[in-house]
């Protein structure tokens, strides 16, 4: 054990030195601004130009929206189009209204800002100014109301297609050292921890799902597969505060004097401060097939209903350097029927898969996510990611269980079947350019349906994450939580 510790420390030290030894100078922060998207639409005689920027505008510089700073031309004629109003809608969105949209052969508009004041990415304290020699411009075709609605459909469809991408463990990080366990195994093992979800079109709140947890590891294989579809309902807590803010926002949108709007803004801020820890409840009903993914000799059709409550994403000890969120499973019930066919004893298969009938289980549980990141801290730990979850199932009726003596799904049992899974990443080195290096530890203990094969595994090794996988890193907690979902 001491030699393993020494080897890991030596590897980590070497990795940190290698990352720091890279001699490329850090790239300067981006100090340019551009128009990410220009949408020009004429839904009802008044044209709207929605200008979305790729950096944050300094909205204190209202001269950026003056008519002398903004040029709008109809294309292809080049005729000037005087704006009716130019307004900030957020710190990346400017809306321009035209009382006289392009006519005749002109079907596009060109918008140019001579000068803009903005903040560079990642720095919201220093105001930069775009070069007057390089106006910030974009051109867009005018869209009718029907074309705008079609564009909305396209954008939504694109978002749905992107969301369907598989989020498997291999996409999230480089697990440098493979699987190492304490279950008496000296060789590395392989495994799959896959969770796929998709929505059913036309059925709001309904999704399909598939989850597999399988490894080649003795005493580390949950032998878990389930696939099916589920329907979800959300119930928000603090509905009175929700209603109060909605009422205030509706009044805000009706307009008023600056003093009235500021007062409404104060009331909205005050109402928003009333929100507490709890977000709401999720009520899920699912119909699924679960099986032992080795040979599917043990399989069940199960109806599953549960209620879980969620916290909001909360600051970690009041700091914005991290967050915490929890999701207790308050109550759940799984009921169904085994669809395993009885197998006959033969000379080569001396054991049988027992025949069981009905399934009835109760469950409670919880999982949480904790994240902390402070690369500039003087302490050794720069970043922490913890995902842990557990579920206690109680089997009211006998079900097929995995027999470790025969390595078959050949016994039955009922009663308590707990399961716990945790994934911890500690990073000791983090650099915005070179990435981060640390340790990953994953601990699993307990059993999962359908065969409740006992699992006791501890995975420990180095992990390196590249600097440009912020989105993937952010997904990592969700993926691990999804693995904990398998327990629920």
């Amino acid at each position: 054990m001491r030699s393993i510790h020494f080897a890991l420390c030596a590897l980590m030290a070497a990795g940190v030195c290698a990352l720091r030894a890279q001699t490329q100078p850090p790239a300067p922060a981006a100090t340019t601004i551009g128009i990410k998207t220009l949408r020009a639409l004429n839904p009802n005689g008044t044209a709207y130009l929605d200008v979305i920027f790729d950096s944050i505008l300094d909205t204190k510089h209202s001269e950026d929206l003056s008519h002398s700073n903004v040029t709008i031309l109809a294309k292809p004629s080049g005729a000037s189009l005087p704006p009716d109003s130019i307004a900030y809608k957020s710190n990346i969105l400017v809306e321009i209204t035209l009382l006289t949209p392009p006519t005749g052969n002109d079907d596009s508009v060109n918008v140019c800002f001579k000068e803009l004041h903005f903040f560079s990415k990642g720095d919201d304290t220093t105001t930069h100014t775009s070069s007057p020699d390089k106006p910030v411009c974009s051109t867009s075709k005018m869209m009718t109301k029907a074309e705008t609605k079609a564009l909305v459909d396209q954008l939504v469809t694109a978002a749905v297609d992107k969301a369907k991408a598989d989020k498997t463990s291999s996409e999230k990080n480089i697990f440098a050292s493979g699987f190492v366990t304490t279950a008496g195994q000296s060789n590395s093992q392989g495994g799959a921890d896959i969770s796929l979800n998709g929505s059913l079109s036309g059925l709001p709140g309904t999704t399909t799902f598939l989850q597999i947890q399988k490894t080649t590891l003795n005493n580390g294989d949950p032998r878990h597969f389930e696939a099916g579809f589920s329907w979800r309902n959300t119930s928000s807590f603090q509905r009175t505060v929700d209603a109060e803010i909605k009422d205030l926002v509706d009044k805000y949108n009706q307009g008023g004097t600056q003093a009235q709007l500021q007062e409404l803004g104060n009331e909205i801020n005050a109402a928003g401060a009333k929100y507490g820890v709890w977000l709401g409840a999720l009520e899920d009903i699912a119909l699924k097939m679960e099986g032992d993914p080795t040979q599917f000799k043990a399989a069940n059709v199960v109806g599953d209903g549960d209620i879980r409550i969620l916290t909001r994403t909360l600051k970690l000890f009041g700091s914005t350097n991290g967050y915490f969120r929890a999701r207790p499973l308050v109550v759940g019930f799984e009921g169904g029927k085994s669809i395993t066919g009885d197998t006959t004893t033969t000379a080569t298969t001396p054991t049988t898969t027992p025949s069981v009938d009905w399934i009835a289980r109760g469950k409670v549980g919880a999982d949480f996510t904790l994240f902390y990141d402070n690369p500039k801290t003087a302490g050794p730990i720069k970043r922490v990611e913890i995902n842990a979850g557990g579920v206690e199932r109680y089997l009211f009726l006998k079900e097929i269980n995995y027999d470790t003596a025969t390595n078959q799904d050949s016994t039955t049992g009922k009663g308590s079947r707990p399961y716990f899974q945790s994934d911890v990443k500690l990073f000791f080195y983090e650099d915005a350019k070179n990435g981060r290096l640390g340790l990953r530890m994953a601990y699993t203990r307990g059993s999962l349906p359908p065969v409740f094969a006992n699992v006791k595994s501890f995975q420990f090794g180095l992990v390196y994450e590249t600097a440009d996988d912020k989105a993937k890193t952010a997904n990592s907690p969700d993926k691990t939580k999804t693995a904990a979902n398998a327990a629920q």
Partner: protein
Amino acid sequence: MRNFDTPMSAPGVADAGGGSGPKDGQLQVALSVARVSALVTVDATQTPFTTTPADLFLLAFNDNKVGISDEQMAFFKARLKQLLPEIGATIDRIPGDASQIIGDVGQIVLLAEQSL
């Protein structure tokens, strides 16, 4: 609603009273995010409203400065639909994928409102 940042010297100066034109929905998007994540705050007294973090609309929902999970997206959508019921059908179709950029959802909301 007209915006007060339009300079007084420019034609078509902003009126101080009365609302006109379609909603843009951006404040509602920011408030819905803040409903789910205590890491995000919205100051509606400013014109335009300001957020913490300031680059909220450039971030993904699951960015570590926002911290919203896929499951929490259901509450974001429910809250947004409550604030903008006239485009509820469009909001229902937005996926519960927390890796989406908040500004992209804001664009969908904006265009949906303007095409009503």
